[in-house]
């Protein structure tokens, strides 16, 4: 008699364990949470929205005031945060951070004199020589290939000519 009881108990336990395998319906994955941007937007926030920058707005993205480092080359603004060791504070090219670096790149000079500050109009680069423009072309190609373009540099009506 005892044996029967033990066997029955064991069987019930086994059946209980196998219940999932024998009787459960198909497993569903809840994508509601995944597809709704409002519930969790951590991933979509990684993507930078392309927009226009005035020199004044751009000047904040120097890796010091704001963590991101942007520089402008020929009207396009590039996110160079990946190259923080070059463009970040105390890096060799830190002068370029948050500035329109076109003239500096064309003249192969990192000096602050070749850069316009945010309260000056955008540099039109009219007086560059052919050699300087060629050098700028090379640099622009490098930026296009290496860093994402996050927007355009537009004139600030308050400080334009």
């Amino acid at each position: 008699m005892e044996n029967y009881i033990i066997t029955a108990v064991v069987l019930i336990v086994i059946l209980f364990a196998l219940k999932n395998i024998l009787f459960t319906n198909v497993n569903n994955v809840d994508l509601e949470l995944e597809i709704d941007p409002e519930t969790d937007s951590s991933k979509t926030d990684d993507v930078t929205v392309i927009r226009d920058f005035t020199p004044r707005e751009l000047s904040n993205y120097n890796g010091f005031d704001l963590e991101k480092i942007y520089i402008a080359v020929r009207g396009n603004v590039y996110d160079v945060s990946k190259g923080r060791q070059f463009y970040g504070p105390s890096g060799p090219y830190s002068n370029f951070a948050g500035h329109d670096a076109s003239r500096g790149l064309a003249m192969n000079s990192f000096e602050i004199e070749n850069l316009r500050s945010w309260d000056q109009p955008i540099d039109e680069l009219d007086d560059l020589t052919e050699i300087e423009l060629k050098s700028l072309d090379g640099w622009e190609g490098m930026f296009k290939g290496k860093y994402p373009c996050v927007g355009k540099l537009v004139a600030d009506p308050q400080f334009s000519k």
Partner: protein
Amino acid sequence: MSALSTVILALILAALVFLYNHLARELKEIDPLLLNNQTSISETRKSCESAIYRSVDVPHGVSVTRGLNLRSGYKIRDGCLKDVWYCGMKNRGDKLKSTEIVLGDMSFKIEEVNYILHQIALKFSNFENIGIYGDLMESPELLLVVWSCFFISDKTVVYFHSKDDLKSKIETPVSVLVTSSKYKSDIDSTSFNETIEIEPLLSTFDKEATKEFKYDPNKDFHHVNNHSFSYVVDGNETKFFQINFVSSIASKLLSIPSTKSWTKDDNMLISYTKTTFSNNNIIFETLCGLVSNLNRIELVNPDNILNLHELSPLKSLIFCTDSKILKKLCTNSKKSFWQSFKLQRSEYFNSLGYFNTFGKIDRSLTLKIIYVAQLNPPLSSLMSNFCKSLTGSSIVREVYTNFTIGPILKTNIFDFRIVQNRSLTLLGVPANSVELKTVNVDENTNQGVIYVRGMSLGKSGSLHADDEFWVKTDIIGGFARDGCLYGYNK
């Protein structure tokens, strides 16, 4: 003795308890973590638009799949359609018999097809462009004319989808129309200088086999007819070029994981419902089959396959079909009580990611992969799991359009997830030859119209590409956090 067996039993149980999590993970076909990150996402996006999505095989920073990556000297080139035939004609090894091409009732060895293609090329040598009218499922012989123009004579094929399209004004001049005797009554004889029926033409050729194919893959690829194909549907001509074909073939074949890759023993069965893109699909799939040196490529009219049991004589089968046909085949099969119980259990394990074949309806069925083109209504993930369990085969769901060669979206071959919200349909991730984005109606939703850009897109007057070459599709959907595109059922 009994003490020893108790100890062993206890040890086994303990081992099972400790190893359960490890085994449960290892036995899955794919780690769910991988399914949660299926695309490469661009770093920037425009306002009111989603980021640009690509397959993880071709992440941002490298080019999307352009071509077959053939070696010529020290350089890599994309290849052309003639290379497809060159690959197809290559020896499959001494032990294997040559590829068999089955077009409806007719069966050929690839060398015999080669002879026929040369004969057809000779016959049409005086014409510049060749028009074709007829459905490839109903008259598969027309495929030979397409191949002949692609591989041998290097002429432009203009394919007319319907009777009304024959009258439409198109850019590419067509003087000769090849059709099947079934469609003779549809054709107005004044529109074309000459109309040729394919059946009497084929009967004039001898059944000879030849391996002769004049093409040097190291030199001749420079001089090919770039505009090789035009498809006329709804009065619009879409022009397709060599790169459209090679990029989509390469993106399809290179996206198959090595454990599932097509081998020389595999057989391919193609069967599509007539749609505006079915003829393009059939041509595309046969080209993929030729490049892969498959054992057999067969075109079957969907009316001739009534249930899954009819597929069982073919071993190791790659089945290219659409959602309508697959649904019909799977729901037509009758099951006993025991079979439906097994099927349900199989569905349960498949939905967890443990791929199994014990729910298979017919023991002799050896399907390897089923490629399903999504028609309306599309194959839902629940239905796909059911078909997967019933056929014991992996299923890849693909989305095609009228203006691309090959799919623009495909699901991961190992994707097992069943979407709980039945109003969402998993459409998949971008094919390797294209990139996609959604353009939203407003900023608060990720739902939008899909735009596509890439190598497999044809050119058409009705397609308007913007400055960055994006082309609008009629698909509405949204990218979820797993990187897959989901469509919304109305």
